[in-house]
């Protein structure tokens, strides 16, 4: 209390750095410790409700306890002060009877009388156990050997000297008692000589009562907060459980278990939720079933069309072939007609084949027949198969392949078809310049690139080449009589493998197609061993 003013003011002028540093460190730790908690907090509605209930009820209970404890304490102390003042006034009256005879503080018998009065009063259980009697000129007698006149504060003494009864709280340790709070009541005795009587009333019973009250309040508060937390947990559980069940059920539904339903209990909001959820699931299921049926019908239709068209086409095919083989015996018109018939049947056949393939993809019935095979021979087979066409177009096709085997889990028929499409496409558009076919593998994927140096692609055409029946230049004649579906089917084939088929090209610099397939069936392609870009190379100068 009595510290030098400078020491008191210093921290106010320049706040020390350590609280900030300490706070920062605490914050750091708190954030680090809280991160998992925060994510759990965000994830659980129940946790959120329970913790906010706990926080709110704690604040409420604390406020309530402080208010109650404060008012009870001040009430108790006020009562005690009233009785203490009354007792002190009584003691003053008793003391005055004996002190009235003295007219001077210098009387030698005075101090003995004072001591006797004090001792008598102290022994009488009606009065305070500790008393202190002083004359105006600081002649002090005590009921008790310990303590001095400094016990009452200066302010209290001032008030008493001015002639009023005043009180003060203080904590003292008298010789035979523990250190405890006391109420000091000071009263003046104004006779021939002025005396001051100070009575020390122990407040231990009040303190006991207050601490008991505080303990009870704390216990009740904690119990209340916990109870509220439990109630909140139970209530949210009532709500959250069906919500979680709905989440679980919808996950199962999403996973394809279309028969999953929620349990409907009672007729409350949650039951309504379950009811409408089930209705939704019902509708979904029937929709999916309808789509499945449509898909089945589509497949059956495709299959039937396929059969119905192919059988007569087979007869036509054989007849045309027979005619074609004997065309030399016909006159010029009939011969040419036979040749046209033969070519157009080829085209028709290809188109039918590819339309059926596309419709198989569309109805979702294209299936992958995975086999672990070496990719190199597939590519080489295709290229050697196209040697006649390449020769006809004056194109040299070079295969660049790794020496080791590149075993991938692929559908060889489909991959062969893709490579066939790419190679024939490249030869057709190469304009007599060389075509390079490259095979490369990484740890996860195999890539087959087909690069021509022909007409190339106009900007924006790189994606459109995979569109059905799309042609870069409708006026161009097609030597191989492609159907316009080849690349669309190739793209579907690549997708079926979870692979990619991409194109890049520039007018006059040619086109690059890269087919990338995962080495293991079921994996996805992330990066291709062959980058999709036209390399800067000398062959552009062809």
């Amino acid at each position: 209390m009595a510290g030098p003013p400078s020491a008191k003011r210093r921290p106010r002028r320049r706040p020390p750095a350590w609280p900030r540093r300490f706070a920062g460190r605490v914050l750091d730790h708190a954030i680090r410790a809280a991160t998992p908690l925060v994510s759990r907090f965000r994830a659980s509605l129940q946790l959120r409700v329970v913790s906010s209930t706990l926080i709110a009820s704690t604040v409420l209970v604390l406020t309530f306890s402080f208010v109650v404890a404060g008012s009870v304490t001040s009430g108790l102390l006020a009562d005690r002060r009233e009785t203490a003042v009354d007792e002190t006034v009584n003691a003053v009256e008793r003391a005055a009877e004996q002190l009235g005879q003295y007219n001077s503080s210098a009387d030698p018998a005075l101090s003995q009388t004072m001591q006797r009065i004090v001792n008598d009063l102290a022994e009488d259980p009606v009065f305070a156990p500790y008393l202190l009697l002083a004359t105006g000129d600081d002649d002090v007698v005590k009921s008790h050997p310990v303590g001095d006149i400094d016990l009452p504060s200066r302010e209290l003494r001032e008030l008493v000297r001015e002639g009023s009864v005043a009180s003060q709280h203080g904590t003292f340790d008298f010789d035979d008692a523990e250190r405890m709070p006391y109420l000091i009541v000071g009263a003046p005795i104004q006779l021939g000589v002025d005396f001051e009587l100070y009575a020390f009333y122990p407040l231990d019973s009040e303190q006991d009562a207050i601490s008991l009250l505080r303990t009870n309040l704390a216990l009740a508060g904690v119990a209340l907060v916990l109870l509220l937390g439990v109630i909140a947990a139970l209530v949210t559980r009532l709500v959250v459980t069906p919500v979680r069940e709905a989440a679980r059920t919808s996950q199962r539904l999403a996973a394809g278990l279309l028969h999953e339903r929620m349990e409907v209990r009672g007729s409350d909001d949650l039951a309504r939720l379950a009811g409408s959820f089930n209705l939704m699931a019902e509708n979904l299921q029937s929709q999916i079933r309808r789509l499945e049926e449509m898909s089945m019908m589509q497949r059956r239709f495709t299959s039937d069309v396929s059969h119905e068209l192919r059988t007569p086409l087979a007869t036509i095919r054989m007849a045309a072939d027979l005619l074609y083989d004997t065309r030399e015996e016909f006159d010029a018109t009939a011969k040419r007609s036979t040749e046209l018939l033969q070519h157009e049947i080829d085209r028709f056949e290809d188109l039918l084949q590819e339309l059926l393939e596309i419709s198989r993809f569309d109805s979702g019935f294209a299936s992958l027949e995975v086999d672990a095979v070496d990719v190199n021979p597939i590519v080489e087979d295709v290229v050697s198969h196209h040697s006649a066409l390449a020769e006809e177009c004056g194109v040299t096709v070079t295969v660049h392949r790794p020496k080791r085997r590149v075993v991938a889990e692929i559908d060889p028929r489909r991959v062969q078809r893709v490579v066939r499409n790419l190679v024939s496409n490249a030869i057709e558009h190469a304009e007599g310049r060389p075509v390079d076919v490259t095979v490369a593998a990484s740890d996860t994927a195999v890539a087959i690139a087909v690069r021509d140096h022909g007409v190339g692609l106009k900007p924006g055409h790189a994606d459109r080449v995979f569109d059905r029946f799309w042609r870069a230049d409708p006026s161009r004649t097609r030597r191989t009589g492609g159907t316009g579906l080849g690349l669309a089917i190739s793209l579907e084939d690549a997708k079926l493998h979870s692979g990619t088929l991409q194109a890049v090209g520039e007018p006059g610099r040619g086109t690059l197609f890269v087919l990338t397939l995962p080495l293991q069936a079921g994996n996805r392609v992330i990066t291709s061993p062959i980058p999709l870009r036209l390399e800067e190379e000398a062959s552009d100068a062809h």
Partner: protein
Amino acid sequence: MRARVLVVDDDPALAEMLGIILRTEGFTPTFVTDGEKALAAFKEHRPDIVLLDLMLPGMSGLDVAKAIRGESGVPIVMLTAKSDTVDVVLGLESGADDYIVKPFKPKELVARIRARLRRGDDVTPERLEIGKPGLQVQIDVPAHQVTLNGAEVKLTPLEFDLLVALARKPRQVFTRQVLLEQVWGYRHSADTRLVNVHVQRLRAKIEPDPERPQLIQTVRGVGYKAGLG
């Protein structure tokens, strides 16, 4: 001796056209339009090869193939309008040796028929063995006889050819392409389903546990090889 061909197809135009082609190529065709009558016709005519449509009125082509397989190992070539794997594999598993998808070129069909009929050329006495004592397959090539641990095993000519091809060079790995060329007579084809299905059928007949083959092993990413050696 002209080879007899039994054509089982319900489409009269196609059958007639097939007849024209087959006769031109020097075969003697017989026709059946109904699956029910196919087996009777088969027993009556004893053809050297059967051309079988999969979609037939009455009895389905698959059942006809099974019935004929139950009787004999005569080569069966399926004529199918469906190239879906399910259909092809089902057909092959029912006993067909080869298949050809409609529409087909007459030359292609004739080549397939000839490939299936081309047999019994090698009359040099040749005996092959694969396996180890206790699990031993012996092949008498000219006699077309196969024994497993001394007991005779009935193989169709195609299964026999496949086994011989593998057993002639034990421990050598055959790719499916090579087998297609040697056994089926294909030049350029990646349809490895033919090989896969027939290897399964062969295993089912000679392996004690077809799920864990010992005599005909799969070499992942390459093909098949005969036995432990």
